C-alpha cells in the first residue's frame, strides 16, 4: 500500500480548511456538515464542479476521507462500481458509499447515470448540492436554475427576463423511480440537514438528498448572508424542504410564523436584480405564484 501522508483532522472536521471556495460559500459549509454527520467510514465519489475544484487541487486535498473524482457526468456510475467492489470483496461494512455533485452534475449531465444507478438499486447515498447553476464554470443556467434568474447563458436582456423555465423537480423525479428515501434540505437548516443525512445513511438501497446551498458569487449576495438567504428561500415557499419515503411525502419543514413575500428573498440577490426594474411587475407575480403553489402542494403553511 502506497502511503501518502497521515494526518489528524483539523478541528474535528472531516473536511479541512485551505480549500479555495469563495468566502461565504454555502456548498463548502454543507460539505463539511454532511461529512461530519456521516463520520469517517465513508467513500466519496464526487462530480466535477465547484466542490471538487476547490477541494482537490494537486497536491492538496481537503478531504479527510477516501475520495475520488473521475468526471462530471459519471459519478453515480463510479459509485456503483465502488459499491459493487465492496460487495465483491466482502467489504460492504467498511464504508457508506456517497456519490455527490452539483445540480448540474447530478440533475443535468449526470442525470442518466443517476437514474440508472437508482434503477439498479445500489446501496448509495446520492447528494446534490443545489446552488442553482453551473457555478464552477461561471454561473451558467442549469435545469435547477429558478425561473427568471439571470445567468450567463440565460441572461436578462432586451428580450429576456432570465431563465425561462422553473426548477426541474429532481427530488420528485428520483422519488418516482421508487427510491426508498428522498429528502430536500438546506444549509440554512443545519439540524434538518444533519438529521436527514443520518437518516439516509441508515437506509439500505438508493437514497437521495438535495441540499440548497447559496452561492454568493453566482447569486450576487453578500458573503455574510449565505445562511439568511437559504432560510428566506424556505420561508418564502420557494424552496420547500421535505422527505419522501417510498414515494410518499412523510415530512415537511413548516413555514413560521407565516410566509414572507418572495421579494424578501429575491432582492438581496443580483441574479434577480432585473426584476426590480420597471416593467417586471408581472414577473414578480409569477414567482409569487410559484411560491404559493409550493405552499399549497407541500402544505408548508396552513394560515
Amino acid at each position, binding site marked *: 500500500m502506497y502511503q501518502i501522508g497521515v494526518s489528524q483532522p483539523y478541528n474535528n472536521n472531516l473536511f479541512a480548511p485551505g480549500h*479555495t*471556495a*469563495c*468566502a461565504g*460559500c454555502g456548498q463548502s459549509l454543507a460539505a463539511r456538515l454532511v461529512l461530519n454527520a456521516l463520520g469517517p467510514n465513508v467513500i466519496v465519489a464526487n462530480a466535477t464542479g465547484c466542490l471538487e*475544484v*476547490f477541494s482537490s*487541487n494537486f497536491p492538496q486535498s481537503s478531504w479527510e476521507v477516501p475520495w475520488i473524482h473521475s468526471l462530471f457526468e459519471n459519478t453515480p456510475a463510479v459509485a456503483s462500481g465502488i459499491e459493487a467492489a465492496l460487495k465483491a470483496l466482502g467489504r460492504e461494512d467498511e464504508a457508506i458509499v456517497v456519490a455527490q455533485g452539483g445540480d448540474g452534475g447530478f440533475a443535468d449531465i449526470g442525470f442518466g447515470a443517476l437514474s440508472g444507478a437508482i434503477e439498479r438499486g445500489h446501496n448509495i447515498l446520492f447528494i446534490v448540492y443545489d446552488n442553482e447553476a453551473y457555478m*464552477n464554470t461561471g454561473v451558467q443556467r442549469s435545469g435547477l436554475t429558478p425561473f427568471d434568474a439571470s445567468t450567463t447563458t440565460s441572461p436578462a436582456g432586451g428580450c429576456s427576463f432570465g431563465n425561462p423555465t422553473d426548477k426541474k423537480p429532481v427530488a420528485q423525479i428520483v422519488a418516482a423511480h421508487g427510491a426508498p428515501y428522498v429528502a430536500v434540505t438546506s444549509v440554512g437548516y443545519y439540524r434538518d440537514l444533519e438529521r436527514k443525512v443520518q437518516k439516509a445513511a441508515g437506509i439500505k438501497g438508493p437514497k437521495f438528498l438535495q441540499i440548497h446551498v447559496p452561492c*454568493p*458569487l453566482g447569486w450576487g449576495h453578500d*458573503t455574510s448572508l449565505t445562511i439568511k438567504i437559504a432560510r428566506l428561500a424556505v420561508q418564502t415557499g420557494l424552496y420547500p424542504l421535505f422527505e419522501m419515503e417510498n414515494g410518499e411525502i412523510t415530512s415537511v419543514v413548516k413555514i413560521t410564523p407565516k410566509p414572507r413575500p418572495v421579494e424578501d428573498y429575491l432582492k438581496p440577490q443580483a441574479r434577480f436584480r432585473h426584476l426590480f426594474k420597471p416593467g417586471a411587475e408581472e414577473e414578480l407575480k409569477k414567482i409569487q405564484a410559484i411560491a404559493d403553489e409550493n405552499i399549497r402542494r407541500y402544505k408548508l403553511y396552513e394560515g
Partner: protein
Amino acid sequence: MKEIRIHGRGGQGVVTAAELLAIAAHADGKYAQAIPSFGSERMGAPVQAFVRISEEKILMRTHVYNPDFLIVQDATLIGAYDIFSGLKDGGYVLINSEKKPEEIKIEGNRFRVATVPATRIALEILQRPIPNTILIGAFAGLTGVVTLEGVKESIRHRFSGEIARKNEEAAEYAYKLVKGGQ
C-alpha cells in the same frame, strides 16, 4: 515593447484592468495585448493579468515574466506572495494603498514605487470598492505608457452611461493626483 503585470484578487477586476489598458493603448494608436492568467480561482484568491503594449504587432503570447511595470490592486498581496518576481531593475510598481511608498517594505531597493489610495477613491467617487479604473488613470499619469485620453476612451468603450462617466472622473482624478504628487 512595454510589459505590465497586474496583481489582485478574484473579484477586484484585474482582468478588466488589463483589458482597459489594452484598449487605451489601442486608442493611442499602439498595438496591445491583454492576457489574463486564469486558474479556477474564486473571489478572494490571488490572480494576475499581463499586458503588452508596442508600436508593432505583438506576436509573443506567453505570460509576462520580466515586466517593466507592476500594478498591485491589493496591498495585502505584498509579502504573502512573491509578486515582485522578475520585475526589471528600475521597474515601476503602482500599489493601491493608503500608505506612503516609503512605508511599503520591498526587499532590495531596485524599484520605483508609487501608491494611490484607489479603493478609497473608488468608494468616494464610484460608491463601490472597485479600484481598477483609478489605478489605470494613475498608471497613465505615472508612466505615460498610455494617455489619459486613451484611458478615458477605454472606459467609454467598456462601460456606458453614468458608470462610464463616473469612472472617467475617477481615472482623471487619479491621473491628476499622481501628476501633482510627482
